[in-house]
């Protein structure tokens, strides 16, 4: 039933609203399917501009190559290089405190380049890291045969993570102190953080304070595991993904 006062007859109108809405939905769907490639192309196209931008405002554009800053507590913790100590204890022969110089100079160093992938979807391609492979740290303190897992504590007081002893001995699990050629900043978890290359970002604990060798699963494995994330966070093969894990 249409009232004459209702405006012009329906024949003279166009459902533009419907087209805009359906068009957006279609675009959103295409974006989910092909956004990953589109983002890579766009990042390449936009790189010359971002490199010359003195304001840093282009860093806010949603292109690949920008880290999101995750912090689970109300303020990010701060610790200077001079004050930094890494406690390694639990089921070990020689409980030890490592200084920043131990991590930065004395222990064997490796550099690796990998894509950094967050479980929710943001990624940064080809990120260079420098640090000590965790197995060197484990060998330094002497792991007791009873130990089965490695539990990591952050000096933010809240964030925890863990790996099985086998995962912790992978060559590409680092106690990292450098990101993209620079000393790790506080935002990125500096002065020293964990970097677990084959796994999603949440496994790479920031502001590394203490490495504890244990013989059982502590706190369901860690902060994000308590919130439903997988314990074994391999990129592609965990959190219900079914892709093959990335091999080195």
């Amino acid at each position: 039933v249409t009232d004459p006062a209702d405006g012009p007859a329906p024949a003279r109108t166009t459902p533009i609203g419907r087209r805009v809405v359906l068009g957006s939905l279609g675009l959103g769907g295409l974006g989910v399917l092909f956004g990953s490639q589109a983002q890579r192309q766009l990042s390449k196209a936009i790189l010359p501009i971002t490199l010359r931008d003195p304001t840093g405002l282009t860093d806010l554009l949603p292109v690949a190559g920008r880290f999101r800053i995750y912090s689970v507590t109300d303020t990010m913790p701060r610790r200077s290089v001079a004050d930094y100590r890494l406690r390694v204890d639990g089921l070990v022969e020689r409980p030890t405190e490592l200084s920043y110089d131990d991590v930065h100079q004395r222990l064997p160093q490796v550099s690796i380049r990998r894509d950094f992938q967050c479980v929710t979807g943001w990624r940064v391609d080809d990120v260079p890291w420098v640090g000590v492979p965790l197995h060197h740290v484990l060998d330094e303190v002497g792991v007791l045969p009873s130990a089965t897992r490695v539990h990591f504590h952050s000096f933010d007081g809240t964030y925890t993570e863990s790996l099985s002893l086998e995962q912790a001995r992978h060559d590409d699990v680092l106690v990292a102190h450098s990101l993209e050629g620079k000393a790790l900043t506080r935002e990125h978890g500096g002065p020293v953080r964990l970097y677990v290359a084959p796994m999603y970002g949440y496994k790479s604990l920031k502001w590394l304070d203490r490495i504890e060798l244990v013989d059982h699963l502590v706190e369901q494995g860690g902060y994000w595991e308590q919130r439903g994330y997988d314990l074994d966070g391999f990129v592609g093969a965990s959190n219900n993904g079914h892709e093959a894990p990335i091999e080195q």
Partner: protein
Amino acid sequence: MTSSVRTRAAEAVPRFDAVTRVVHWLTAADGLVVLATASVLYVPALSAQIGRRATIMEIHVVAGLLLPAPLLVATSIGPRGARLARDLVALWRWTVTDRQWLRRGKRAAADGKFNGGQKLVTALFAGLFLMQLLTGSVMYWNGPFSSAWRTGATFVHDWVYLGLFVVVVGHVLKAIGEPELLRSMVTGAVPGAWARRARPGWDPEVETANGARPLPATTVPKGTQMLIRLVGGVLVSLLGVVWILQGLDIAKGSGMSGEAIWAVAGTVLLLVGVVLLRAANATRSARS
């Protein structure tokens, strides 16, 4: 009869009823929460300053999912939401004048209650919201999706966030630029002179019509209306039940488990779902 109406119309004519205004401001307030939490999650300086990522993310998801709730409830409560429903139908369809208003910048006075710009911004809000709902769901309930899909969803979600910021700022600037319209969303009325000048094709009398002049029926087919309410009601109720179970820690294994806020949000959602289902039932009874 007409003389008294006309005298009053000379100073202030009704434009939006109370239901419409309440829906507008509830949605606006919730939308601000969504944009504010989005900024904390997205802008590195804010993320670093405020932190508390897990909590901010939960607020963002709940507030985002609740965005359409005021509108859905209001258009499902029967006659009291009928004016809002009628406005939505009017916003949906574009006349020749609206298209010229938009395409050629030919700013002739609108031939209905709304002009092309108002119709465009409504369609953009609806379309961009649905894009965020789709991509946000892939990001939050990421389990079944490949890393490439998650990356694609994040890519879209981020760009649409920037787009929504522009649309919201534009909407607010436009409202400030036309104070009569801004005031009408507070008081419900516009000056008669403005109505005659800016909306000559709009007959404000239909806004008050009650009894003497019955409100014209909406042109949304009853079947479609029922289907939207039924599907919406079932989905919203199911989600509400899941959230309650997770909030009470009966359903485990999710980031939401054991967090009381989800039990509260789930209860609100369940109530919305029940209202929708009752409305669907009413529509069905009205048809048969």
